[in-house]
């Protein structure tokens, strides 16, 4: 029973990751599912739904379609819709039923593209992997399809960056991505593109023009590796959280830029075994950047990241942990003096008033419930947030 979650909720799935990544790019995104994925996505996973239109649809797969394969109907419906809406591209993402009956998404995409002349991406998500893999799959498919070799540009001598792996699922819409872009600009970088918030498809297509790629969540890593293989662009992992953090961050980023060697903000900023024990639960890059921001301040030494995504741990430091089950989490939380995590993890708080629990809501976990409390952490915003901690218990 170790694998059973009695108290924990689940993170958003790969299908929502695809939709979230493609939301702002003018494409037609179709979830191939009965309807469940649709309501989960628009009610819980997509904060932009009410303010900003996007062509996200559901195929409304019925039992009889599953029995007969339903590919013809899916193709017909998408072709008809695409002819009316004229999207820049079409993306089809799968769910559990198509996985079980073996729907061939790339073949279906090929047929649709032939009939409409619109670039079509077949994304074989199945609703059983985490959102990060969905984002990653969508971003890579976009890049393979749209990125072109650099066109000579005249103008600025400032280095430019692509930000990779930015979606509201990890950064919400409370201002983090805007503050992040500003931080880059005030440190002498131009934003070439941001994958995929606040940039349009043409900016993304021009990603090869950047001098460096910045991976801000594990969902951006595969894309960074692809861009490196294609254009030789080095990448740097991490987010400039905290004032001291940002200083170290931009210092290390510059090194990557000059050396051309890939780098990471937080590896090498080691945790000590003494001092208050801090546990940070979250996505690998994000939580590790919080850890680094703290370690770079005085008085914080013993910090561990617990990452709930066993599939997305390649960016974790060696001392950090990929969470396997609730039992393991319970043990980790018992030992911690300070826990920084989504408020839904409060259920595991030990009955010890001395433990400080810092609410760090994560859109991909608790959705809109605590959105108003989602802090901006870029540069000194982090330090302001931190000042509030001692007030909370």
């Amino acid at each position: 029973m170790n694998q059973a979650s009695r108290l924990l909720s689940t993170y958003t799935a790969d299908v929502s990751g695809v939709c979230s990544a493609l939301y702002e790019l003018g494409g037609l995104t179709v979830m191939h599912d009965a309807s469940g994925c649709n309501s989960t996505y628009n009610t819980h996973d997509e904060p932009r739904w009410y303010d900003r239109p996007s062509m996200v649809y559901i195929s409304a797969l019925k039992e009889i379609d599953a029995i007969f394969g339903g590919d013809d109907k899916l193709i017909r419906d998408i072709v008809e819709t695409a002819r009316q809406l004229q999207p820049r591209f079409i993306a089809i993402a799968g769910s559990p039923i198509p996985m079980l009956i073996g729907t061939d998404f790339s073949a279906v995409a090929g047929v649709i593209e032939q009939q409409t002349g619109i670039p079509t991406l077949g994304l074989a998500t199945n609703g059983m992997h985490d959102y990060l893999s969905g984002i990653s799959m969508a971003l890579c498919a976009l890049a393979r399809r749209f990125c072109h070799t650099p066109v000579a540009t005249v103008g600025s001598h400032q280095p430019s960056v692509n930000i990779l792996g930015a979606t509201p699922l990890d950064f919400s819409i409370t201002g983090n991505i805007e503050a992040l872009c500003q931080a880059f600009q005030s440190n002498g970088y131009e934003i070439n593109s941001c994958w995929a918030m606040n940039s349009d498809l043409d900016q993304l297509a021009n990603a090869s023009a950047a001098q460096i790629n910045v991976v801000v969540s594990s969902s951006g890593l595969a894309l960074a590796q692809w861009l490196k293989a294609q254009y030789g662009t080095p990448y740097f992992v991490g987010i400039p959280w905290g004032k001291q953090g940002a200083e170290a961050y931009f210092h290390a980023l510059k090194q990557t830029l000059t050396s051309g060697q890939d780098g990471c903000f937080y590896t090498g900023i080691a945790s000590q075994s003494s001092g208050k024990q801090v546990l940070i639960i979250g996505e690998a890059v994000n939580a590790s950047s919080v850890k680094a921001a703290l370690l770079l301040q005085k008085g914080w030494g013993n910090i561990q990241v617990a990452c709930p995504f066993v599939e997305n741990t390649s960016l974790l430091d060696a001392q950090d942990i990929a969470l396997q089950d609730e039992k393991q989490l319970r043990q980790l939380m018992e030992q911690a003096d300070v826990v920084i995590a989504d408020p839904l993890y409060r259920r595991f708080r030990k009955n010890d008033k001395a433990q400080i629990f810092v609410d760090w809501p994560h859109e991909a976990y608790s959705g809109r419930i605590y959105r108003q409390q989602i802090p901006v952490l870029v540069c000194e915003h982090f330090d302001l947030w931190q000042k509030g901690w001692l007030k909370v218990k």
Partner: protein
Amino acid sequence: MDTIKIAIYGKGGIGKSTTVANLAVAFAEQGLKVMQIGCDPKADSTIYLHQGQPIPSVLDLIRNKGNDFALNDMVTEGYNGVLCVEAGGPTPGQGCAGRGIIAALDKLAEKGAYEQYKPQVILYDVLGDVVCGGFAMPMRDGHADWIFIVTSGENMAIHAAANIATAVQNFQSRGYAKLGGLIVNRRNVAREMEKVEELAEDIHSRIVGVLPHSPLIQEAEEQKATLMEAFPKSDMADCYRQLAGQILAVCREE
């Protein structure tokens, strides 16, 4: 008398549909109301009971009409009053045939087929092996009570029969159908009867009937009829009649 519900399994092409259709006529000759349900996307189980004319399958009806069709659209009366139903299913290589069988049998029950027609014998003719849950549907509670497996002495047929017997065995704790026995549809291979007898022993079952290989079957098919219709006086027709009697005896034993 309780309805006798029988599912016929066996390796692909071994002669299930031929055997079931001829058995259906043999039961009907005894004055029993028979319903034959083809559980195979090919929808060819009952074809020689209605002069080779295709009938609308349950899944085609659902696909084209939703729920807007009547019970008698799914059930066609064939030779000697045998009630013919074809579950239907996707074209090969697409969709999920197993789920299709489940949906078709559910629809049949939902529309009251069993209560309206009150068949005394129901025969389920099930495709090939039990590859997934859908193909085990006919043996679930509420459908067949008895399973008979058609086999010859060919190794592949014996192997398939052993697999099916294992599946039936595994489902015993769920109260699914019981194994009634083996039907030998002869192909005249070496040591044929001996091999099937060995199989029967291995799976703790018995042989309930032996059907010779008969060229009359193909001749009947040329006339788009079952052998029972085309050559009712033939020895082969008597073999089917005898088999029908043995099957009834097994089912009534308990």
